[in-house]
Structure formats: structure tokens, C-alpha cells
């Protein structure tokens, strides 16, 4: 697999799995307004995943759906940060804020990439991500100093570093005013991802080859 396809899959898998996790709040977010907003953000992330899978699919001679749903859990390249489950709201916001902050740095690099197609898509995604960051920042500012939120940021910090390539990590550490620590790297997947995969691919696996 080309380096480009691998990179696209990392990005796409992050956005798909995070979108899925965020959508688990649909119906049970702290307020009705937040429920609508967070569900909408989840849909955006999945939309980004789709666009990225489509680019990767062209390189790999397959389809976006096949990449999203027909791989085994071990083949996903998502960062452990986005895979975690059963987060309470403070932990959800901590992840959301850390991810969006990391994603901003990652997208900035992609936007200036020599790969015009990837740079163009990154610019498009970033125009939506601006509002995700605004939303994450609002919540983070509100929860800062809260014991559960601070504990969650501490806990998730090594995971957040793992979203980025090693050379991008110092910028993230500076942005969130933390020291760089040993990152939780991509590669190994938890049982939580396998459970998610089971649920996410259930319908598609029920009738292989069907057109939806």
C-alpha cells in the first residue's frame, strides 16, 4: 500500500471511528441543544471520513464503503484516542478538545502539502472543523478547573499525542501547555474497537454484496 493511501486511511479511520463514538451521545447528551449539535458534529466527521475513503479507494482500486466496513478490525489504522468508549461527558469533551486541537495541526500540514488533491480536501474539511474547534473550545473553557475534566485531560493526553506524527507532537504540547510524554501509538486495537466494529458493520455483513 502506498504511503499516501496509508495516510489517507489513518485520517479516514480517525474521523469515522470518532464520528461513530460521538454519535453514541445522540439522544442522551446533557441538553437537547447539545444533543443536536454533537450529533451534527458526528455526522460531519463521518462525512470527512467518506471523502477521505473515496480518495484512498481510487488509489487502492476499491470503494469507500469497502474500506469503511469490509476490513477486519485489525486492519483499521485509527488512533487509540478515538476508539475509547464509555466516556462520561467530561471525558468526551476532553477527547473532543484534544482531538480537534491535534487535528488542526494535522490539517494545517496537509493544507500545505504538495499533493494538490489532499491539500484541497484538507482545506474543505478545515472549513467545517473551525466550528468543531469553536464548540470544543467553548466547552473546554467552561469545564476547565473541573476535577473530572482535568483528570480526563491528564488521562487522555498520551492518547492525544498518538493522533499525530512524532514531528507534529511538540506543537501540540505547546498548544495545550503540557509536556510531551510517551504517546499511545496507532497499531494495537482494544476490545472496544472490536465491539464497535461488530456493531458498525453488522447491517452490511448481514447481506454481503448488497447495494444500499
Amino acid at each position: 500500500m502506498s504511503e499516501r493511501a496509508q495516510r489517507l486511511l489513518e485520517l479516514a479511520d480517525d474521523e469515522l471511528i470518532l464520528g461513530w463514538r460521538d454519535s453514541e451521545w445522540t439522544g442522551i447528551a446533557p441538553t437537547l441543544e447539545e444533543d443536536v449539535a454533537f450529533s451534527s458534529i458526528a455526522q460531519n466527521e463521518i462525512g470527512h471520513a467518506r471523502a477521505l475513503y473515496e480518495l484512498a479507494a481510487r488509489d487502492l482500486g476499491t470503494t469507500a464503503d469497502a474500506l469503511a466496513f469490509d476490513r477486519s478490525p485489525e486492519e483499521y489504522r485509527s488512533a487509540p484516542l478515538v476508539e475509547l468508549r464509555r466516556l462520561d461527558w467530561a471525558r468526551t469533551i476532553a477527547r473532543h478538545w484534544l482531538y480537534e486541537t491535534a487535528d488542526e495541526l494535522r490539517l494545517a500540514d496537509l493544507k500545505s502539502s504538495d499533493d494538490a488533491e489532499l491539500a484541497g480536501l484538507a482545506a474543505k474539511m478545515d472549513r467545517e472543523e473551525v466550528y468543531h474547534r469553536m464548540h470544543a473550545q467553548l466547552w473546554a473553557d467552561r469545564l476547565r478547573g473541573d476535577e473530572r475534566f482535568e483528570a480526563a485531560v491528564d488521562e487522555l493526553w498520551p492518547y492525544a499525542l498518538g493522533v499525530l506524527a512524532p514531528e507534529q507532537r511538540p506543537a501540540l504540547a505547546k498548544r495545550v501547555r503540557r509536556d510531551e510524554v510517551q504517546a499511545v501509538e496507532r497499531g494495537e486495537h482494544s476490545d472496544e474497537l472490536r465491539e464497535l466494529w461488530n456493531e458498525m458493520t453488522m447491517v452490511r455483513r448481514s447481506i454481503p454484496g448488497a447495494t444500499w
Partner: protein
Amino acid sequence: MIFAVFRQERRGQPFVHAGSIDAPDLEFAEAWAREQYGRRQESEALWVVPREAVREVHDFPDELSKTYHRVDGYSLKAKLKEARERASTAAA
């Protein structure tokens, strides 16, 4: 805090009350209004206004039935008919 949200569907059209948002402050109201009323490309722009900034005005007495204040205060039907007849007579 309750915020009233007004929505403009297309550029140049009037803003129409779309609903309300219960938010702790204007920043959250804006973020939530954006996701609730703008994410399907259904709005060109939104106005997000604290509910108490909206002054409600009502009770408009018309004790003396001043129908000439109203569009329907003038019956044009008979006059129009008359004018049409006059016009057709003149043409003939």
C-alpha cells in the same frame, strides 16, 4: 437563558422566527443555533437574540371599527365590475 433564533433562507429575504435555544450564554447559543438551523444549508444567515431583548407588543384596540384603516375596508369588487363594464362599452 432563552435565545430567539431568526433565520434567513436566501439572501435578501426577511429573517423569520425559526425557534428558540436554551443556552448558558450567547457563545453557546451561537454554536448550537449554527448546528440546529444551519447545518443543512437551509439558512443564509441567523439572528440569535436574547429573548428578553425582544419587546413583545400587542393589544391593538379598534373600538370604533375604523374599517378604512384596513385593506378590506374598501370593497373594490363592485367598483371594479363597474369600471370593466364602462371600459368594454367604450371599446365597443
